[in-house]
């Protein structure tokens, strides 16, 4: 079925006339119809509109038109603005909000001919690691529906892994693309901070957020990045660095590539199956000529504390705009203050409230220096650790997560335990690096395990080349969850 194809295979078949974009889109819609009641990956979609886009794409192709994603159905995390479509961030607070504008990445996807269809589930405002914090209810892991799919871009990962779309966009603030990709067995790329415009991504933590693709293989990841990367005059933090040709760099050759293994990543709570799978993956790369070097990232143990201060502080301001004045589900009050407080008290879910409160606290008078300023300084130390390591190595390999997907409900009452599971992914955002998660095995219970590679800022070419080499050397990508 076309919905199970990678982007590049689908494009080949669309070009050969084997299949139409309408058929591919219908296949995705049918797939959603048949399995999404169980998986709950989608918050909403407009079949009619999707098929109209598909017909336009088919016509364009028939008229000789081209586009890197011409006719390819892409699902979008419900945190990215799509003009004339609802935008909820899986929160009640946005009510019936409809975006009057397109995010820059959406504009770029459309320019490349993509079918932008469907809003996928997430943790509310991207705050979470399990997609359990969604006003739309939790998404489920396609490999075992009793387990979480990871988060916050859980819907994006589920939709790709379960072939409900061909590829999707997610956002990653502390691992929110890589972690669900690892837990669902697909490829998730967090580009370097500034590589992809954030304009139109509802901000969680502005200095950490980055949009990235979730795909069925590494080549697709390169294709998607190619389309969405680049400087944007609507995002002051996007970088004008030239965008290289990512796909042409997928040579399958890692000879001489130096891969670092951080000593500090041997943490308590690292699952032995995860550890073994990642070790085999590293060996596989070594066999193909990569040089494996032990490195040190001495401030690793401070990353989670640093992250939760910086991210929540930024979030406390970013989410202040949701107060019921200009949009969203207002709860009435006798004065604006009461209206705001009730609207936010009822509209936000508990994790969001927790984080806003924490963020407000660490910025408040008398605490700023002790918490926020100190965290910003430790962030410098963490960043310096990485930049120093990247003098010795080109990439850093590790597990994406310490364990395979845990069960739904297992950690909801212990937010701190949930936060601690982000240990391997968080530093990448703090340091502004690029990172990718690719499948590297399964637990004995059949749950996917992810290998994370991290690269220096704008080091996506090396990152993708290495990930692609490993992927092609194994056949994890060909395993599909049994859902029918």
């Amino acid at each position, binding site marked *: 079925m076309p919905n199970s194809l990678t982007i590049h295979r689908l494009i080949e078949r669309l070009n050969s006339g084997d299949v139409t974009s309408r058929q591919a889109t219908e296949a995705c819609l049918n797939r959603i119809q048949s399995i999404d009641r169980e998986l709950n990956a989608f918050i909403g979609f407009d079949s009619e509109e999707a098929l109209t886009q598909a017909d336009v794409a088919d016509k364009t192709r028939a008229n000789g038109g081209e586009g890197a994603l011409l006719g390819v159905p892409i699902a979008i995390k419900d*945190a*990215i*603005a799509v003009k004339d479509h609802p*935008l909820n*961030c899986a929160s009640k607070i*946005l009510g019936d*909000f409809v*975006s*009057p*504008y397109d*995010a820059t990445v959406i504009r770029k996807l459309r320019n490349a001919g993509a079918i932008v269809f469907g809003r996928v589930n997430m943790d509310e405002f991207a705050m979470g690691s399990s997609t359990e914090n969604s006003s739309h209810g939790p998404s489920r892991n396609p490999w075992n529906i009793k387990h979480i799919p990871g988060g916050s871009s859980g819907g994006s990962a589920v939709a790709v892994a379960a072939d409900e779309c061909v590829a999707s966009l997610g956002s990653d603030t502390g691992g929110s693309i890589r972690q669900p990709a690892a837990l669902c067995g697909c490829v998730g790329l967090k580009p370097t901070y500034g590589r992809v415009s*954030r*304009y*139109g*991504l*509802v*901000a969680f*933590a*502005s*200095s950490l957020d980055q949009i990235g693709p979730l795909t069925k293989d590494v080549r697709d990841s390169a294709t998607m990045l190619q389309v969405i990367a680049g400087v944007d*005059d*609507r*995002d*002051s*933090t996007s970088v004008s660095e030239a965008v290289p040709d990512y796909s042409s760099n997928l040579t399958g050759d890692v000879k001489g590539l130096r891969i670092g293994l951080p000593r500090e990543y041997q943490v308590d709570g690292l699952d032995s199956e995860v550890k073994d799978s990642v070790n085999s993956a590293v060996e596989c790369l070594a066999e193909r000529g990569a040089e494996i070097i032990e490195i040190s990232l001495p401030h690793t143990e401070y990353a989670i504390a640093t992250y939760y201060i910086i991210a929540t*502080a*930024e979030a*406390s*301001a970013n989410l*202040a*705009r*949701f*107060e019921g*004045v*200009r*949009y969203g589900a207002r709860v009435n009050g006798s004065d*604006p*203050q009461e209206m*705001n407080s009730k609207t936010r008290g009822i509209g936000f879910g508990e994790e969001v409230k927790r984080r806003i409160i924490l963020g*407000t606290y660490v*910025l*408040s*008078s008398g605490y*700023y220096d002790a918490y*926020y300023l100190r965290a910003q300084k430790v962030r410098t130390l963490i960043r310096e650790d990485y930049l120093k390591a990247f003098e010795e190595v080109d990439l850093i390999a590790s597990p994406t997560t310490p364990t395979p997907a845990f069960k739904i409900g297992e950690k909801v009452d212990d937010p701190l335990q949930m936060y601690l599971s982000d240990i391997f992914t968080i530093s990448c955002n703090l340091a502004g690096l690029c990172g990718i998660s690719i499948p590297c095995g399964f637990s004995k219970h059949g749950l996917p395990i992810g290998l994370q590679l991290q690269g220096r800022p704008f080091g996506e070419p090396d990152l993708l080349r290495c990930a692609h080499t490993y992927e092609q050397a194994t056949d994890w990508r060909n395993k599909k969850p049994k859902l029918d």
Partner: protein
Amino acid sequence: MEYEAVIGLETHVQLKTHTKMWCGCANEYGSEPNTNVCPVCLGLPGALPVPNAEALRKTALTGFLLNCDVPSYAKWDRKNYFYPDNPKNYQLTQLDFPSTVSGCVEFEFGGGVGKVRVNRAHLEEDVGKSFHFSDFSGVDFNRAGVPLLEIVTEPDISSPDMAYEYLNALKSILEYGGVSDCDMEKGQVRCDVNISVRQKGDTELGEKVEIKNMNSFSGVRRAARYEISRQMEVIESGGELVQETRRWDDDAGITDGMRTKEDAHDYRYFPDPDLMPHRPSEEWLAAVREEVVELPLARKRRFMTSFQLPESGAEVLVADARLGDYFEEVSGEGKNPKLVANWVINNLRAKLVETGISIADLKFSSTAIPELVGLVEEGQISSSIAQEIFADMFETGKDPKVIVEEKGLSQMSDSGDLEAFCRDAIEANPGPVDDFRKGKETALNFLKGQVMKASRGKANPQVVGDLLVKILNG
């Protein structure tokens, strides 16, 4: 007991730009509500700010005009507070690294020069405008995101009059520099006043009272006067002053305390992650410096010394900068700048007001007024004819000499031509002639007037007077 007031001002001035601070919406007053808005300035989810280069240039320019330093590093911070007119519920501003610091404003005050130090002039964004109805309020976000410069003085101001003069001086500097139109009616200038009172000779400052959101300079003066006497009364009566924010009620002529919760001012500032710091380069600063103009006080002094203008005239030309520019343009290296100034200040200004025409649309050339002055000086036309010619050239744009030529207005000085007019006048007015002969000198003026009338003003009055005397005595 003798008291002195210590006053500091925070003046918010909207910058004159085409677009807002972070987005391409028009920076425009008077549009239909919520029409100059976009995802950015409405604070929609996902929108991001990008700074307006022109606002930063105008900020640096203001810095130069106010004798400030423009530091090599400036950054943006979020000031967090909820208010319905504040779209993001944080205001972007510059907390600890503002774009300009440490300057001063000099102005004429109390027969000398007043000087107020400027602590900083930092850039921030304006908020929307609220309208209050009987049972609800409404918000228009057209103003939200308009670049706003906050100019903060040191507590150098010692009286309400000094505050008033400082504000006027600041306004004219900003208008002169093209930084802001400073239109009070449009709310382009708003002021917070900090006032404390202490015993003369004390070095410690008293408890500071802030009067917020004043929108007229005279209001600032009145409020300051009221507040100073209120604070003195409190001290005199043994009461204690508290640091607080008060509001000026212009109708009642009093300030009253505002209800504020104890933690209302925990703004939780932190660096804005969406905006990158600004490091002005030497080239960038040099380009801004090119735009620095002469300040009003300096210009007035120059007008008085270089052109020998009287103070009143110089003041008119400084107060109306365009008129002053025009004066400088037309007087050029002319011989009679003082006379040219008179024409510009009196005749031209009146005509412009009367017709509503702007200087840019004047029909006559920049050499016309000096030429007209020259014709009078050389005795070719009388000053009353000059008035007529001026009206004509204002209307038609013709050169004065052309008008003189066409209308045959040049002065009659030839005694041969004038004699006939004189004899006619003598013949027609036997009464006054008689009076004159009886020694009534003023009768001569009447006869002179008759000759002028008959010559349609062209006769040279000097020559006419001499001729009349000659004929009557002859």
